[in-house]
């Protein structure tokens, strides 16, 4: 494998890791506040559709992004209503959101565009273009550093950089601010927050809203940056891989980045069986790579690589005790 192939592989790792990372951080906010969310997948899918559809109709990808975020946040609000206000089962609400999104997106797409459940192909201003960072063209031919900068670091869409920036931002918010302290506390022991005179409900809604926002960006990235338009079920299980990454990272922002990059690498290798064969001289079934994130998560959950302890109040609706 030559250097350029490696750079290409890493480049596509970053591209594939981005939606995982956004969804993973989305889940991190929600679960750190004690609301389990297996509806990441559905929210991404809804956001992917609405951002592509609105971008196609308006010709402006930013309007599309807002529509995607809006759709995702509506579903978040549903999840919040079910699990915070009505103290329902968070898993069931999440499953419902996934089904709802899978069905509704195709149905609405067919109704609006009559293209077999797709949106029209996006182009020009209706799609996020890759950004060329300053000086990328100039040093592209410099050996070693050139391709690294021009191919790997430069040349992604704005959403990729946003996702990467979201990691330190999340860390800072969670561990350096009052909001973060309270958010983490409400996921561990809501009664402590309640008796301290802080609203459990408001905090959890805030967390769920941030989750919706990030899932919205993740979904928009799928249909307006990674691909050019929405196709049926295009989230393709990424919401679940993001959940796996969340467990893998033990609910920590920086580790979430590493986990998503690792899972992104598996995704990138899946499309390049030739690279694996060249390096390992083994013919690896690419479906196996697709399953690897789940296998690794099971290993983590079984406690082989340290213990993954979820937030203690996770999944439990908060009821004031007598």
């Amino acid at each position, binding site marked *: 494998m030559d250097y350029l192939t490696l750079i290409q592989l890493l480049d596509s790792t970053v591209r594939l890791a981005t939606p995982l990372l956004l969804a993973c951080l989305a889940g991190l906010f929600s679960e750190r506040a004690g609301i389990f969310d297996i509806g990441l997948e559905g929210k991404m899918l809804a956001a992917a559709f609405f951002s592509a559809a609105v971008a196609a109709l308006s010709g402006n990808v930013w309007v599309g992004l807002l529509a995607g975020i809006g759709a995702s946040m509506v579903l978040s609000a549903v999840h919040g209503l079910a699990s915070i206000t009505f103290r329902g089962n968070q898993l069931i609400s999440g499953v419902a959101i996934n089904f709802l999104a899978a069905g509704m997106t195709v149905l609405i797409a067919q109704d609006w565009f009559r293209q077999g459940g797709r949106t029209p192909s996006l182009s020009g201003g209706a799609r996020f273009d890759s950004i060329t960072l300053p000086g990328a063209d100039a040093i592209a031919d410099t050996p070693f550093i050139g391709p690294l900068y021009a191919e790997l670091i430069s040349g992604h869409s704005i959403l990729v950089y946003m996702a990467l920036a979201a990691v330190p931002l999340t860390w800072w918010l969670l561990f350096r601010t009052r909001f973060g302290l309270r958010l983490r506390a409400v996921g561990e022991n809501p009664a402590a927050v309640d*008796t301290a005179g802080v609203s459990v409900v408001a905090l959890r809604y805030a967390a769920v809203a941030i989750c919706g926002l990030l899932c919205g960006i993740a979904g928009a990235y799928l249909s307006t940056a990674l691909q050019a338009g929405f196709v049926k079920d295009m989230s393709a299980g990424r919401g679940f891989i993001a959940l796996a990454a969340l467990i893998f990272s033990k609910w920590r922002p920086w580790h979430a980045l590493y986990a998503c990059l690792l899972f992104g690498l598996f995704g990138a290798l899946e499309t390049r069986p030739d690279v694996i064969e060249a390096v390992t001289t083994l013919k690896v079934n690419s479906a196996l790579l697709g399953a690897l994130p789940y296998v690794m998560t099971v290993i983590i959950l079984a406690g082989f690589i340290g213990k993954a302890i979820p937030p*203690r109040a996770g999944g439990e609706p908060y009821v004031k005790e007598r």
Partner: protein
Amino acid sequence: MTSTAPAIELKGISKAFGPVQANKDISIRVMPGTIHGIIGENGAGKSTLMSILYGFYKADAGEIFIGGQKTEIPDSQAAIAAGIGMVFQHFKLVENFTVLENIILGAEDGRMLRPSLAKARASLLELAEDYGLHVEPDALIEDIGVGMQQRVEILKALYRQADILILDEPTGVLTPAEADQLFRILGRLRSEGKTIILITHKLREIMDITDTVSVMRRGEMTATVKTSETSPQELAELMVGRKVLLRVDKTPAKPGEVVLDIKGLKVVDDQGVERLRGIDLQVRAGEVVGIAGVAGNGQSELLEVLGGYEQGTGSITLNGHSLDLTGKESDGRSRRRRGIAHVPEDRQREGLIMDFQAWENTAFGYHHDDAYRAGILMNNAAVRADTATKMERFDVRPPIPSLAAKNFSGGNQQKIVLAREIERNPDLLLVGQPTRGVDIGAIEFIHQQIVALRDQGKAILLVSVELEEILALSDRIAVMFDGRVMGERLPAETDEKELGLLMAGITDTDHPHSVEEIEANLAHAGGDAHKEV
């Protein structure tokens, strides 16, 4: 605050939950700089009243005055603003946060954490100076003992500038030494002008530390008296509404043959920690052996091995036959067949299924009984009838077999479990925390049943964290600490102080020991020893 205005005055507080009148027209005055006790049985409405004062519930009627000012308390925030701090029975701490983080939670200065933490660290030092409340600010809550955790709760209230401190059953999880220390702290707080409300069901605490005491019964305030002008007997009567025996009435034991013989019993838990480190213990027919100890020092594991849901190594013989500790015969069913009945420590988790009806609960563990069988089916009618008889004999109220277990009071739930186990006429009865969360009237009854079984010549192994109970019921006392039996004592030849030292792992009980020494010893046994409470 003027010296004449009461720190707290409640006027005509009423609160109903559906048809249940939890508080009926309650009025109370607490003067500043005093410790006021509120005593009453479980379900008497003490906690409801305090929850109203702390803004958890809204009273249906009545007024609250703080320092002479009429105050509305719609939520905890308002209570905190009014200078009220509450230390709940179950601490409201975030386990994997540091002490400091727990203290500032909800009372941060500004949006950024670091300045808040720095400020809290400084004022924590001051508070430690002023009240003798020393804590390690950077320790994680899960790594410190319950006594320390409680101190953090008190500091939380003081950090919010509380002038009024409410403590709900604060000594339930403490060793006698820790409780003494708590009382010293409360005394110090009182001398600094703080007002303290102490909710408890322990008469001794009321007598030891309070200035005035109010008694609650069935949602009503039955009396408020100066502590110096009352007696435990009088308070007990006011609580229960009739005369109660504070001591267990029993004749000396007539121990017979050795029924249970434990030799070198060891238990290792899932994390590889040795929970029992070689227990040697005998229980004879016709005697009650009480195991004293702070919760989490191996008592639970001992009951679990004997009851058949934990495996161990060593040897246990029952009536001369050895029990299987690891194999096929080490389960609960085999144990029952051998004549061991078990009243587990946590009746709501291990003793009953709360959503199931009383008659279903009565069948558990004995559902293989031929009397309960009709061919290959259960003979439900027979179980119901049997339950009705047992309920009558054990005075379970209400005596309705079809009522779900969760709808009985704590004492009546315990009577259901006790009836199920005792009525099987076992050779050995294991009893864990028989009266935890049970009111005085029922405690009396439960104790009588245990003594009656003893007098029939049965062996009884009692585990309790209540030293008073151990002293009252046992014919012999074994003290456990850190998975070992520290020593055996006869109730007549020992006292709470000596047992307290043994519970803290100190065997040379003749010499005086400082609280620090005891705490250091407890910490050595691991913070975990405390956590299971």
